[in-house]
């Protein structure tokens, strides 16, 4: 008995091609596409960093020590890291680094006074590293890692020299004679590397919130048209003395209201999440990714989320109109998830500071990348990508609205498509059975 019921259920479900696509093919494609995007992005990011390191890193050197070990450090940098060193005059490190950045030198190494004296006395010497973080991305963080690892690498190098030259030295000191403090210059402010790592974690969470809101918006819009079909209200609606464009506009306006509410709700939740994560590691909202972009930046991010949600609603409404009922309309939304999720991650892994501009413009042109692109453009002060992303999303939105209006104008909304194909399949089945 159970077998008979299960067979009936499976037949009913599996014969719904839209359901197959939305529920089975879409999740498969999402993860395959995401895997491909992530592996491509990570590979490209690492390749970009390796290329830069192979060419030799560029850094400013503020030598306040002028002793033998600072000279040794310079030799180490030139010999083992192929560093191109730019000598700088003493001054506030952040200010000096800003001047270096203008000359396309992204890092500053400060050798404090007494560095050589400390090491000569068997005491640990400390170096200060200041690095510009162009974007919250794997490549920028990896490149920053190359600079912030200088103290550790020099310490290992010096350790072998100390151990080979003297046998009576304190082993604790000899093992690790040099320590370091790394600070980052991110979005124009000096930030502790630990906080930046935390922000990086926040940044990786960022695509999830818009993705969820986009998914729900598309699903809700698809449901609204699916319900009209399932509850048999569509025929009456289309026969009323209101223009078809009016019907589309009404559905879009209500989607717009839901999109606005959804965006506000998401922004509040996301701000709380990001603030609480920053607070837990000793920072606060000001040191979070949202704190860095400021109120205007947050407003821009909210606008980008709103645009994406509106696009998702419109797309959901359009795709949902191909379904015969709520179930099939919602399963069509699987497409929106694929279309929205992959570009969001592609944008997440891109580096606005290091990746080629052509590639970045191409990514920014893909719909649904606007929330991430805007945020990244704001923190890296590369607003062109935000503008391109928003403009492209707006264009696609207009295109989908036109398609939707066309769909409502004709009779296909009621009679559907593919009758010929279905009939041929049906005929084929009957013939086979005969």
């Amino acid at each position, binding site marked *: 008995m159970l077998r008979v019921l299960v067979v009936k259920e499976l037949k009913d479900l599996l014969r719904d091609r839209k359901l197959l696509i939305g529920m089975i093919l879409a999740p498969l494609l999402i993860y395959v596409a995401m895997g491909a995007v992530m592996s491509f992005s990570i590979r490209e990011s690492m390749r970009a960093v390796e290329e830069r390191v192979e060419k030799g890193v560029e850094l400013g050197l503020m030598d306040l020590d002028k002793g033998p070990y600072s000279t040794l450090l310079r030799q180490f940098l030139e010999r083992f890291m192929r560093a191109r060193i730019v000598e700088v005059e003493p001054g506030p490190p952040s200010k000096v680094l800003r001047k270096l950045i203008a000359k396309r030198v992204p890092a500053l190494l400060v050798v404090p006074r007494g560095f050589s004296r400390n090491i000569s006395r068997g005491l640990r010497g400390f170096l200060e590293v200041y690095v510009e973080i162009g974007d919250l991305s794997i490549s920028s963080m990896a490149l920053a890692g190359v600079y912030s690892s200088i103290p550790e690498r020099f310490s290992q190098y010096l350790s072998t020299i100390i151990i080979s030259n003297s046998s009576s030295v304190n082993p604790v000191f000899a093992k690790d004679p040099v320590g370091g403090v790394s600070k980052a210059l991110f979005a124009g402010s000096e930030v502790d590397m630990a906080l930046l790592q935390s922000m990086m974690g926040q940044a990786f969470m960022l695509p999830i919130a818009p993705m969820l809101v986009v998914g729900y918006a598309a699903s809700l819009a698809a449901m609204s048209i699916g319900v009209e079909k399932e509850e048999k209200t569509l*025929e*009456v609606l289309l*026969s*009323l*003395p*209101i223009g078809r464009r009016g019907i589309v506009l009404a559905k879009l306006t209500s989607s717009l209201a839901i999109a606005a509410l959804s965006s506000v709700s998401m922004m509040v939740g996301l701000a709380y999440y990001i603030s609480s994560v920053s607070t837990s590691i000793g920072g606060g909202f000001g040191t979070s990714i949202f704190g860095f972009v400021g109120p205007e930046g947050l407003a821009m991010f909210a606008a980008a989320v709103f645009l994406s949600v509106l696009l998702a609603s419109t797309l959901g409404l359009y795709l949902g109109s191909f379904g015969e009922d709520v179930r099939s309309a919602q399963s069509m939304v699987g497409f929106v998830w694929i279309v929205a999720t992959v570009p969001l991650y592609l944008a997440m892994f891109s580096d606005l500071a290091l990746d080629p501009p052509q590639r970045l413009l191409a990514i920014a042109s893909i719909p649904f990348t606007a929330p991430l692109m805007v945020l990244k453009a704001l923190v890296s002060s590369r607003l062109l990508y935000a503008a391109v992303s928003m403009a492209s999303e707006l264009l696609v939105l207009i295109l989908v609205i036109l398609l939707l209006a066309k769909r409502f104008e004709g009779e296909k909304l009621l*009679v559907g498509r593919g*009758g*010929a194909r279905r*009939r041929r399949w049906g005929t084929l089945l009957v013939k086979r059975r005969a």
Partner: protein
Amino acid sequence: MERLGRVNLAVEVKELVKVYPGGVAAVRGLSFVVEEGEIYGLIGPNGAGKTTTLRIIATLLKPTSGSVRVFGLDVVREAPRVRRIISYLPEEAGAYRNLTGYEYLSFMARLYAASRRDAEEMVEEAIRISGLGDRIHDKVKTYSKGMKRRLLLARTLMVRPRLAILDEPTSGLDVIHALHVRRVIRDYARSHGVTVLLSSHNMLEVEYLCSRVGIVHQGRLVAEGEPRRLIEEHGVGNLEEVFAKVVGGA
């Protein structure tokens, strides 16, 4: 057709053909007219093309060929104007589940009425037509099938259309609800001079309501006339037997 004169025609269907995408021909050269003020019934077996024809007249579908005019207006070229003078009740129509019956009627009335007062009058009339009493303030999802149909019929008639298109108005209703619906259609058409074009499987209903009927089979009109005359012409006892004779011999 010519005898009626164009001014008195509520509906004029000429050589109507409808082939759906996929090649299914639902209507194959159907022609008939409905006079202003009459109740005309389209009867025919399942798949005869009745609903397709009504949907074309209601501007929902476009004819493949032929023409349809409603009070002289072409349903394709002048669809928005046609929609202002018709009111359509599909066979399996639903209402918005989460609205109350009153809210549903108010929403519909506001689309037709010129003023708020007119809309209120329409709703009051619809409440009277539906006979739903206090239940009008309950959500539609709590209504039985019969109550829902009465609400929808009230919605169709409250706007005082020049042409009411009713597809199987009593389909699936019990005797009591069906009687109520039939009485409302007949009384409303008489008292307000509304032209009604309906389709039905129920021959009793058609005999009771319609001044003329057209029997449709395989997308074509195979017989037409006043029910009593058709019965006499075919020498049978009732319209059901006329139907069986005509469709069976078609």
